[in-house]
């Protein structure tokens, strides 16, 4: 059995990138792990569209799904406040860490059907923040 790589862009309404234009949380399109994925990570890039000011950060979450937990129709994902908090990307150099663009890789739990990347930038109403993300999975295929 060999290990292989699978790389996938995180899509937002079937497009890349996602521009945060307000302080409302934005969820990506659903991502489904392959049954042979044994390890996975997501790299997230946050690029401030303006000159950063303190508070220009993005909080990154992973909303995992184990399928149709409610037994109604489609897959169900972790709710906003109970999603897995991955971390914060801060674009302000006055803070440490703080860079623009800010890019960080987070480990994803593969013991699930899949999930959605969820981002929220409280200050994005004043300065747009452009999000790009890519998932890398190691497959035992």
């Amino acid at each position, binding site marked *: 059995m060999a290990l292989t790589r699978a790389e996938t862009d995180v899509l937002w309404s079937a497009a890349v990138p996602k521009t945060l234009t307000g302080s409302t949380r934005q969820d990506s399109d659903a991502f489904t792990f392959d049954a042979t994925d044994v390890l996975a990570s997501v790299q997230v890039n946050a690029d*401030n*569209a*303006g*000159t*950063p*000011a*303190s*508070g*220009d950060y993005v909080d990154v979450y992973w909303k995992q799904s184990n399928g149709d937990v409610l037994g109604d129709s489609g897959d169900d994902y972790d709710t906003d406040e109970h999603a897995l908090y991955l971390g914060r990307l801060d*674009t*302000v*150099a*006055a*803070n440490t860490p*703080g*860079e*623009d663009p800010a890019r960080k890789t987070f480990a994803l739990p593969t013991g699930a059907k899949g999930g959605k990347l969820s981002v929220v930038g*409280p*200050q994005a*109403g*004043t*300065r747009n923040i452009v999000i790009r993300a890519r998932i890398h999975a190691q497959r035992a295929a």
Partner: protein
Amino acid sequence: MTPEQYAALRAAILTGTLAASCAPYVRTYEQDQVLPKLSAATAFEKDSAIAAILNAPGPTEENGAIALDAYTDQLIRLGGLSTIIVAAKSGSLVADVALKTIETARSMGIARMDFSLATVRAQHEALVASGAMTQQTYDALLAAAKRRLSEAERLLGRPVSAAEVSVALRYGLAFPKPEGA
């Protein structure tokens, strides 16, 4: 900081007495709408330069604050505390109030005696007028509290940070962009 304090900081940077010195380093939200964005590092350098200008001591000496420990130490060294105690024991109300003020400030954790406040100066002048403090002691205390106040101290009572400058100029999280801005 409150939004009102950020608004005052923004006004001090853009139109205050140090506006001309700050101008080369200013990058406002409004400028950002028509100019290419600055890198985070450049923005930090500019915001830091403005903070340094606002935190620099001003040109003239003014009444400022003295740490309460330093104040009482000075008072004891000059013999002023014993004079106040004797006056209080002799029935001087202003002397008694002065002692109670020091005790209360200590118990409440108030860390400084601020001679920029008219009430504090008036209390000491009343002590001098009643004979519970010598003019020499009062002058020495005032001299110890003299400071060249920075613009930031005048505005906020403390130094300002580059992060706070960034918020004031470009409407950061704690200072929302006003409607129509």
